[in-house]
């Protein structure tokens, strides 16, 4: 057992995946000599050489488009997009090709790519470095979207993403990069498609993923003092969603809230609320409430904590669903 941060866990996963399969390579801006702006690819260049850890020109569509070609040539690319807000230049390659190639080609051309994107706010960054773009990806058929919340999951889900023949958008909760846990690596947690109950509880279910899982657990601890028993479910995969676990949790508690940093309108909370009322209509004692970032662009650093969902906003929602 050793204490590893979430960032280190991903680094280990990359190393182990590259050792296990000589076709795995990473590419992106500053992934090589620098080891990535978050050091997630640290050491890969010296360990695996210039061909398997490629510092690319500054061009995101280029990174993803070239990865499509590399995948067709039999490689298993793990491109990095440096920050959430910089995946947008690659949107066409991701949505029109990465997501659609397998279907277009009747399964003949599979693109086993894992697109790594550090995402989310809370680190006091300047604009475009704190986006939560998961809706864009999860709405796009043909992509899988994995979001780990803990170091062990970060390791295990990354290994799973890399061996998967489906393209995966791997969203790394950057404000939890430095979260430590005692983990024995390699570790294999549940498959990503399975949501996990992180804390049992009977009064209200709180659905969260990535950076908000810790926030939800913090809220649950405080809620105890109010006599509210929160069940915290970590979604882990946003596409596919584990509808069974979601529904069965609500069938136990009868009340649910969804927490995410992304803006409310058409955020994951919308989909989860829609699914719950569809599949557990009679179990619901109150509407599913959404505890989210506001429907404005991400705020400047000094205001982000007013914007981001925190323990208080969660407890407020808990109170609301309880007084229904």
């Amino acid at each position, binding site marked *: 057992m050793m204490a590893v941060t979430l960032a280190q866990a991903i680094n280990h996963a990359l190393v182990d995946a590259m050792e296990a399969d000589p076709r795995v390579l990473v590419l992106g801006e500053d992934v090589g000599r620098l080891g990535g702006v978050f050091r997630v690819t640290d050491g890969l260049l010296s360990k695996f050489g*210039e*061909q398997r850890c490629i510092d*690319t*020109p500054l*061009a995101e*569509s*280029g990174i*993803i*488009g*070239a*990865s*499509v*070609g*590399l*995948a*067709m*040539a*039999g*490689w298993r690319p793990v491109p990095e997009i440096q920050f959430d807000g910089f995946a947008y*230049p690659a949107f*066409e*390659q991701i949505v*029109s*090709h990465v997501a*659609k*190639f*397998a*279907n*277009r*080609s*009747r*399964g*003949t*051309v*599979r693109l086993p790519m894992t697109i790594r994107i550090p995402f989310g706010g809370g680190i006091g960054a300047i604009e475009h470095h704190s986006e939560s773009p998961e809706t864009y990806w999860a709405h796009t*058929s*043909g992509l*899988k979207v994995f979001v780990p919340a803990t170091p062990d999951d970060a390791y295990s889900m990354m290994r799973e993403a890399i061996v*998967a*023949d*489906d393209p995966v958008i791997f969203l790394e909760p950057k404000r939890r990069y430095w979260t430590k846990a005692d983990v024995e690596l390699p570790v294999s947690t549940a498959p990503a*498609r399975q949501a996990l109950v992180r804390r049992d509880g009977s009064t209200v279910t709180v659905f969260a993923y990535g950076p908000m899982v810790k926030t939800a657990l913090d809220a649950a601890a405080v809620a105890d003092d109010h006599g509210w028993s929160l069940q915290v479910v970590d979604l882990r995969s946003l*596409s*596919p*969603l*584990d*509808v*069974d676990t979601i529904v069965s949790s609500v069938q136990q508690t009868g009340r649910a809230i969804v927490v995410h940093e992304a803006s409310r309108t058409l955020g994951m909370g919308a989909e989860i609320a829609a699914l719950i009322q569809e599949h557990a209509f009679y179990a619901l004692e109150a509407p599913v409430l959404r505890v989210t970032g506001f429907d404005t662009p991400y705020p400047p650093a000094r205001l982000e904590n007013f914007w981001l969902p925190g323990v208080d906003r969660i407890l407020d929602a808990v109170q609301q669903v309880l007084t229904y």
Partner: protein
Amino acid sequence: MHRPVRDPSELLPPGEPVQLLQPDGVLREHPEFAPVSDPQLLRSMLRHMVVTRQVDQEAINLQRQGQLAVYASCRGQEAAQVGSALALADGDWIFPSYREIGAAITRGIDPTGLMHMYRGTWLADHDPYAERFGLMTIPIATQVLHATGFAMGTAMDGKDVVTVAYFGDGATSEGDAHEAMTFAGVFNAPVVFFVQNNQWAISVPVERQTAAPSLAHKAVGYGIVGRRCDGNDVLATYAVMSEAVERARSGGGPTLIEAMTYRMESHTTSDDANRYRGEDEVAAAAARDPIDRFQAFLARSGVIDDEFAASVAGEAAARSQQVRDAVYDAPHGDPTELFDHVYVDPNGHFAGQREQLARELAAGGGGV
């Protein structure tokens, strides 16, 4: 993976596009390039061009009869496509746009699969690995990056593969074309960027795409070699492409080739080119027809005779008929196939949606 910075004079295209065969079918001396003389190869050039033209015409007919959703003709571009594709070895790869029926036919690909894309039977219908011919690509210039990445990949494997990206004059304006040539230059990828400058991007003339002296001049900005050829001259296209392929194969890096040609038909069958271009221009281009000039040259030089011409005509008719037979009223597949390929490991709710579709089908719903 890298190479030293080159002298710009090596990279810039020489003044005039390379031409070896004049529009009147007479050979022309060139200081650098010579026409191929192997009669076998010359005949096969003609054969592919003639077959292409007829299959292309058949596709237009099929579209008019409601059999294809749309079709993008390559009429007038046969020399560019056939000449370039013939310069490739069997193991080399092509990443096409949507107009490369001629290149496909040259590579021996059954055009039926490509026609199914235009019919809308499925989104694509050939095996790229078996044919070493990528899926036809509609989002402009995106395939240029795939070609570059693919070439980077084969080079790392030490494979003897040259990759060619086909794209249009309009496509050179897209960011993806730029990023692809940037990557290719930096990583010295064994790739050829083959631009068919057919003068038009739908209704927009090439002068509206760039103020550059020529599209080939863009090469110097990527540290790669730029070349131009008369794309209606199959001999020149073959010669210039062969040089580029050889450069890539021997580790000399990418080349950008601008083949000067002309789109004789409307952009696609949905378009009406009369709205934006004059008949004079089209007539002038017709006088530079790639097949007429080559046929005249071959006949005069005795490489072909009437018998050969007849056999080619027969083959063209037969291939067109095959396409027609395969496509005409071709049934679509089982619609539930829509759920089969999206993921290896499908999302959970696919099961429910597939059942819903199956129920609707059982009730006789939907369908064109």
